[in-house]
């Protein structure tokens, strides 16, 4: 592809993102679910435990980004299969990568927007961001990473949204418990620490701890966190493209 073709496809991906935002994200229940779901889950596990507020806020931050970025992306494909909108997209001069990139961009914007909630909540409790640039880079990278992960869930060639949501939940919930959100990674048993390495949520939570609590709070170094998130992003995006290329003909 020439540079002109790539920029053309990028503009079309932005059009798909704009459409997704209009149809799927700017809905009251989606926004409320994106905020409330991690907040309540977090409170349910943290109530009564004697942990510092900045530790809690960092965990909430990681979980909020994770939930927000994986909330809608998985259901776009099944919904559009059912409504036959996917056929419209398939007949248009766009590649599958462009379509998925559009879906990812919408999800990233939503994830970034929702991430302001725990930041504001933290500020209300007097928790300040020690490393704002690191946090910003982490949020952007993590929202891309989790949005791409969400697309993997939707690669199953089904038009039944609940099936996709079930697959999504089956993966998302176990990840929360092995990613250092409720228990610091350093306190996990060795098998837990090994498992945590394979969860992308571990690295954004760790990065949030560093950003909120200061230099010594992170379990891994900043470069490891950012590097791991980048590797996960590449893996997830590549897998999503390959899987959707395979499943798209079965949807149409």
């Amino acid at each position, binding site marked *: 592809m020439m540079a002109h073709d790539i920029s053309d496809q990028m503009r079309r991906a932005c059009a798909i993102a704009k459409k997704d935002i*209009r149809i799927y994200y700017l809905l009251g229940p989606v926004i409320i679910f994106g905020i409330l779901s991690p907040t309540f889950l977090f409170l349910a596990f943290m109530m009564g435990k004697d942990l510092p507020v900045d530790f809690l806020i960092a965990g909430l931050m990681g979980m909020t980004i994770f939930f927000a970025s994986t909330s809608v992306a998985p259901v776009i494909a099944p919904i559009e299969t059912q409504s036959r909108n996917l056929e419209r997209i398939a*007949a248009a001069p766009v590649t599958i990568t462009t379509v998925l990139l559009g879906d990812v961009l919408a999800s990233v914007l939503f994830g970034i927007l929702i991430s302001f909630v725990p930041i504001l909540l933290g500020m209300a409790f007097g928790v300040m961001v020690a490393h704002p640039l690191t946090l910003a880079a982490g949020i952007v990278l993590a929202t891309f990473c989790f949005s791409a992960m969400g697309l993997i869930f939707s690669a199953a060639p089904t038009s039944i949204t609940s099936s996709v949501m079930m697959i999504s939940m089956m993966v998302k919930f176990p990840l929360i418990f092995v990613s250092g959100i409720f228990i610091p990674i350093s306190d996990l048993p060795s098998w837990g620490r090994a498992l945590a390495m394979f969860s992308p949520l571990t690295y954004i939570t760790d990065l949030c701890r560093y950003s909120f609590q200061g230099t010594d709070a992170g379990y891994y170094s900043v470069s490891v966190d950012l590097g791991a998130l980048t590797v996960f992003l590449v893996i997830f995006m590549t897998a999503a493209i390959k899987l959707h290329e395979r499943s798209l003909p079965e949807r149409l």
Partner: protein
Amino acid sequence: MKNVIEVTELRKNYNALAAVDSISFEVEEGEVFGFLGPNGAGKTTTVRMLTGIIKPTSGRISIMGFGIEQDPIKAKQLIGVVPELSNAYNELSAWNNLQFMAELYGVSGRVARGRAEELLTKFDLYDRRDTKVKTFSKGMKQKLTIAMALMNDPEILFLDEPTSGLDVRSARLIKKMMRELNNAGTTIFLTTHYMEEANQLCSRVAIINHGRIAAIDAPEKLKTRIGGLEWVEVSFSTPVTVSDLPDLPQVLEVRSSGDKLQLYTDEPGSTISRLVDYARSTDRTIVTLNTLTPTLEDVFIKLTGDGRAG
């Protein structure tokens, strides 16, 4: 005229079944090309392959020189697609649907706004431009779907059953639009169940049956293909049933149609003479006498065997 669509040995298998079985044809620039066939004949599968929605099992499709598999972006950029069922986004307004299409096809903002206004006005939807599509009637959705397909000013417009289930006014508007577009140079690939619609609009038609092309030609030429046979339609001053008629060797089939009898014959002149003789001999007068040339529907029924049009 150059070919704008070239299809060579196109095949689509679903498991062991060949939905489309090695078909080849060309569509010339500026044609209205009709694609007719009974249910399950492979029409929609063919259109979906031509428009790049599904991949063929084998064969080649060229859209204005670009292979739909080899160069899908360039090929799709040149076409507009109107599916049988509207696939406009119900949660978006008519205006936003059109703008989304413009953005998907890389139409600049100023051109897109002008074109959207023009199309919405033409299709009588301008007053509803900010209304969500989910509140639209079937006819309004279909008109919007066509408008969406025209946002990129396509060289070739594919329409799959565009007037199916529409009221007379909407159907007429869509047929008028097809004629206007064709007069302006757009090539039209039309799939339809309505023989009269194909007869009125198409410069050539292909009839597909069991995944194979049964015939392809201009409608009038196809009509002459079924052997120069004609219907002679007659009505008498007093009722006559099929069994009342004398034996007419040149008549292949007789059927009654209301108060008329229709005789299918390869010798209309001699059949008419025998009918006049019969009227005289039975002291009847002939009230009406017409010869009816074969219709496209007759061709369709003959070529598709069971005649399950639709």
